[in-house]
């Protein structure tokens, strides 16, 4: 028994010596002189003294562990970092994007932590580069503008974006929201409150998607509705389309979507259907809702999204072609699809809003001033006796892989199509 105890003790001593040496090695793998940690670096990086005086200092910096992130001699990465700049933070913060997150912040995924944080020190909590919402608004300028200019403010937004959003990732919702809507909204807004009910015409909207109608970042409309409000909503006439609060199914529609819309937009629908080319979503039973929000929208025409995003849901290949194109066509690049296309119907190819591509292009391009090539109905396309020469004989309006939106790599290859 005594013998066994001695063997066990010996084993433990060997183990302690071995791992102790390893620990010392890890702790001082650069063989720094005693008490030299960090101080040696500061002998040259003297400006760092100011950093160390800041209110919030990154722990490795505070303890002089510069080699936690930097290699003192050589490195394959910028700033002598011990790992790629977009990965170095994850060595200590591996769970910043938890598994199964429903949404993630793009800059975090890309490892661009320094877009928001100072890796050494800052006077802002979490070593943020700027105070409060300013750190978010540095990138989200459109929202900053909206928050600043809106007449009806949402107090939590004025206070902090982090009241509703997680900055790195959200396990519960899209858009980095801390919880799903309406649960998130209901943490402040009591939907059973009589005032709330009255404001919503006693319709049971407690489980509805609040952001269908309300702009959470503030708006110019009463009730923080999006700036473009469908007249029946603005006039509080919910029952024009919905069954109403006295019904067993108060939110149910009074009739199918197409019939409801036709009730007010009959002339437009008749005009649309009188043309030969009808945009197919228009023909669906609930087709209007393919593109329009029936309540309110930040977009003109109550569109569900900016046009480039909305149209791009179905016409992704066309949008991608523009993105690839060496020459950008401004209306396409800006997402102004309706500069050239009728969204509902047209008698022209591609739902164009002019019969002749020459007339359409001529709205912006005075072609005869910069080009002398003949175009028009008098000029047959030598490649095809049923075609006349138009702008589209040489250019593709949504761009190509080549310059000048021509469908061939070089101008010569384009010209010799006809000029052989």
């Amino acid at each position, binding site marked *: 028994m005594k013998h066994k105890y001695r063997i066990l003790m010996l084993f433990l001593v060997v183990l302690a010596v071995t791992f102790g040496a390893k620990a010392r090695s890890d702790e001082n793998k650069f063989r720094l002189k005693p008490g030299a940690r960090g101080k040696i670096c500061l002998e040259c990086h003297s400006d760092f003294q100011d950093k160390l005086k800041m209110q919030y200092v990154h722990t490795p910096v505070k303890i002089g562990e510069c080699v936690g992130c930097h290699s003192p001699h050589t490195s394959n990465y910028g700033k002598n970092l011990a790992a790629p700049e977009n990965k170095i933070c994850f060595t200590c913060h591996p769970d910043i994007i938890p598994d199964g997150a429903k949404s993630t912040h793009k800059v975090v995924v890309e490892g661009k932590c320094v877009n928001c944080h100072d890796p050494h020190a800052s006077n802002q909590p979490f070593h943020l580069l700027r105070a409060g919402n300013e750190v978010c608004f540095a990138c989200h300028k459109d929202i900053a503008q909206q928050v600043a200019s809106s007449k009806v403010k949402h107090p939590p937004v004025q206070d902090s974006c982090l009241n509703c959003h997680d900055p790195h990732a959200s396990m519960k919702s899209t858009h980095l929201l801390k919880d799903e809507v309406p649960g998130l909204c209901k943490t402040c807004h009591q939907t059973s409150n009589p005032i709330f009910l009255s404001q919503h015409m006693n319709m049971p909207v407690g489980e509805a998607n609040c952001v269908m109608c309300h702009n959470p970042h503030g708006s110019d409309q009463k009730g923080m509705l999006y700036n473009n409000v469908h007249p029946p909503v603005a006039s509080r006439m919910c029952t024009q389309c919905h069954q109403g609060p006295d019904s067993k199914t108060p939110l149910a529609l009074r009739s199918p979507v197409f019939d409801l819309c036709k009730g007010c937009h009959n002339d437009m629908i008749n005009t649309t*259907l009188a043309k*030969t080319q009808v945009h197919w979503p228009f*023909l669906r039973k609930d087709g209007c809702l393919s593109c329009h929000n029936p309540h309110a929208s930040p977009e003109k025409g109550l569109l569900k999204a900016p046009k480039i995003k909305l149209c791009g849901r179905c016409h992704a290949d066309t949008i991608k072609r523009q993105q690839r194109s060496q020459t950008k066509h401004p209306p396409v690049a800006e997402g102004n699809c309706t500069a050239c296309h009728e969204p509902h119907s047209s008698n022209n*190819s591609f739902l164009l809003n002019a019969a002749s591509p020459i007339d359409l292009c001529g709205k912006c391009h005075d072609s005869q001033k910069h080009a002398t090539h003949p175009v028009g109905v008098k000029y047959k396309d030598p*490649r*095809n*006796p*049923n075609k006349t020469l138009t702008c589209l004989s040489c250019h593709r309006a949504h761009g190509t892989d080549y310059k000048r939106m021509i469908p061939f790599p070089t101008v010569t290859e384009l010209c010799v199509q006809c000029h052989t």
Partner: protein
Amino acid sequence: MKNLIIAASLFAALSLALPVRPVAAAGVKLKFVVAVYADGKGNPINRPEAVSCDDHSVLLSDSGNGRLLTFALVNGTMTGGKEIKSSQISYPLRARKGPNGDIFVLDGKSHKIVHLDANGNYVSTVQPTGVGGEVIPDSFDIDSAGNLYLVDVFNSQVVVLDPQGRMIRQIPFAQDTKDNGFISDITVSKNGDILIVDGVRKMVYKAGKDAKEFTPFTKSLAGYMSFPAGIQTDSKGTVYLIDRNGASIVTLGADGSISATQLKMGWKEGQLYYPSGICFNNNGEIFIADRENNRMQAFVAEQ
């Protein structure tokens, strides 16, 4: 070459010789034969949206002119270019022949299917019954029994009608298509399978003879196609898709795998510019409605 083209004139009386070939199948190569630019009287074709054919005739939807053109195929020679017009047809989107030679036309303006007799005389407008509401088709096909298969875009379903217009079956589109898709065409195979193609999602869906729902026949064909607008099958189960925005023909094997991508964008003969419809017959002859080139092109299948 001598058996390829005998075209007296593309704008005058039409007489085109097409070589007789076995039916098209996977692995075939399309070889250009001739482009047709005009009817039998020399009037130019304008924006043809669709073409259908059998071993003896070709029916072109000359949509921009609001008419149909019929061509006869006799011993490999295409003749005719006869015009069919009807006050009920403003913009023919699709036209198919029924088993007795009658013609059914989907009009893009009225969104109705117009029934004409074999000579092009108006018979009736198809009024679907038993469907339980309005039907708005954006494409259709006919089987050998004369049953109509409508892509009912209004209700996101395929409706099968008997020759009298009575509803036989309703098959809803797959949920993905309902949510964010668009069925651009339909075809019924000889064994009764219904194939529909989703132009937005770039997928083909299939419903067997007695199926109650569509299931994916292919994965997304993104990367191979931009916007499939037409679909046809042959007797061997080969599926042909026409890529309108990508200006090509994609061939699928009977298992839905891609076997070939052919042709390219352009204005010259043998090239396509926003093609919209395709058909082929048992002679291995393939016709394409080359919409934005304002012409019909004929190809033959070469093994």
